[in-house]
């Protein structure tokens, strides 16, 4: 994809130099690493929403152990710093999977897996296996990251959704029952649609935090945009094709602009969504009628 005139970088000047510099294979890896961020968001967001619903339903369940599970899940994750969770979950999952594979694939090895502070499994149990391509390693790391993100943010979403379900006025649900609706009809026709009004501010907030948490991928060893910004921005001596001083400032500035843009767009999107799901239509921008309270006198 590199341009014709880029053949000998040492002869280039000005914008020609810059255009060639910005199209080096490493830079192309940098650009594709933005896709990693989007992929993480695209996969994590729906999973988080699902986990959030599951957690909220568990907390509301009439079955006590399920209720316990829901409460423990949400309060435990809420009480732990995110960064620690992101460091803990991938390592724990990694070891869990390798331990299981070790037991299945190498039943003959009797030596304990935990030897002092070492975690030793047979070669066949390694995840990914030692002869796997680099992209498999990346994918494995990415998958662990997705799981860690989903667990953490799922707990927050569960809290938000649980709170939103509680916030729907009781009389709205009672009225539905009074008109003969079954429990599931009440839930589908009234409870769920009205829940969004109360959940959206929290969920939009959560989305922003999720977007801003994506650089944690770097912490998990995934080659994300932060990794590449550091790599490419660092000073390059004349040993390199395109030598330059420490430009990390500019690279990080670019990331800053990227995240600002992303959160700004998200904000606009959620404002629209909130408008759409607003229970009090008179408050939405689509209407010019003055606001009134739902159910006067409440």
């Amino acid at each position, binding site marked *: 994809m590199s341009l014709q005139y880029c053949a000998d970088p040492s002869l280039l000047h000005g914008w020609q130099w810059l255009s060639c510099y910005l199209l080096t294979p490493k830079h192309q890896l940098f650009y594709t690493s933005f896709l990693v961020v989007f992929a993480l968001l695209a996969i994590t967001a729906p999973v988080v929403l699902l986990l959030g619903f599951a957690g909220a339903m568990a907390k509301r369940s009439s079955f006590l152990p399920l209720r316990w599970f829901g409460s423990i899940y949400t309060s435990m994750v809420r009480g732990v710093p995110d960064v620690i969770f992101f460091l803990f979950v991938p390592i724990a999952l990694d070891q869990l999977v390798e331990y299981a594979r070790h037991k299945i694939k190498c039943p003959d090895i009797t030596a304990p897996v935990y030897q002092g502070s070492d975690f030793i499994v047979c070669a066949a149990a390694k995840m990914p296996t030692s002869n796997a391509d680099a992209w498999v390693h990346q994918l494995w790391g990415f998958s662990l990251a997705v799981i860690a993100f989903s667990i953490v943010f799922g707990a927050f979403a569960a809290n938000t959704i649980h709170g939103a379900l509680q916030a729907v006025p009781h009389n709205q649900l009672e009225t539905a029952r009074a008109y003969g609706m079954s429990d599931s009809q009440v839930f589908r026709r009234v409870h769920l649609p009205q829940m969004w009004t109360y959940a959206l501010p929290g969920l939009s907030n959560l989305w922003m935090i999720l977007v801003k948490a994506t650089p944690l991928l770097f912490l998990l060893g995934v080659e994300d945009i932060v990794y590449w910004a550091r790599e490419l921005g660092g000073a390059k001596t004349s040993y390199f094709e395109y030598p330059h001083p420490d430009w990390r400032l500019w690279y990080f500035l670019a990331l800053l602009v990227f995240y600002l843009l992303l959160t700004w767009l998200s904000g606009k999107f959620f404002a629209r969504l909130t408008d759409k799901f607003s229970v009090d239509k008179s408050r939405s921008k689509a209407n010019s009628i003055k606001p009134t309270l739902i*159910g006067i006198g409440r």
Partner: protein
Amino acid sequence: MNSNTGSTGSVPVIELRNIHKKYDDLEVLKGIDLVANKGDVIALIGSSGSGKSTLLRCANLLEIPQQGDIIFQGQAVTWGKKKGQRTPSDKNQLQQMRTNLSMVFQQFNLWAHMTVLQNVVEAPITVLKQNPAEANNRGRELLDKVGIGDKCDQFPSQLSGGQQQRAAIARALAMNPAAMLFDEPTSALDPELEAEVVRVIQALALEGRTMIIVTHDMKLAYDVANHVIFLHDGVIVEQGTPDEVFKNTRSPRLQQFLAATGQEG
């Protein structure tokens, strides 16, 4: 004209027999009997805390009385137990009752996320499984009837209290119920808006609709009811025709109540 004893060959729609309702140690209803025959308009009056709203809510089982029988169109509610509490055991029967006893609430309780017309057709479509197109047509007719046909596509929060309550009445009518239950339908409205709701209720009474109305509005009770029940401390202290109850008041308690509400005579 009134046959509240249920013994003169009229058709009872809903009968409440010896209803007792307790919240923890507080006994709100202490053995109430009430029969609404077809075409009856019964007004339940009494001070706040007398148990009149609770009694009304027992009729469609929004409240479950610990003791007593509820008979809907000749069928007694069958009871089961859940977590030590008495509870209706037959879901179909419960649905049958609730769809036939549509309720109008003090705070209107229109579903806030639906337009006025959607509110009216919601239960007919999801519960009664009516054809949506037909339900919509009928919904528009009913909204016309209560005088807010032009508000079909507005949301409840865009309507005045009086309009909301009329929409709620249209929603109740859309169920084509055997009886309508009104829980203080005018209490949340200022006098001007109250009048428009009262007119609608009066029109329904003239149509011969069976209604039970809990109200603080003695004029409404006098004008539309054919039978008035005065509740105090969970028991029926006095009942009879509006003239008997309001003009020839016997019990001192009711005299006191009417004096306090400034509606005596």
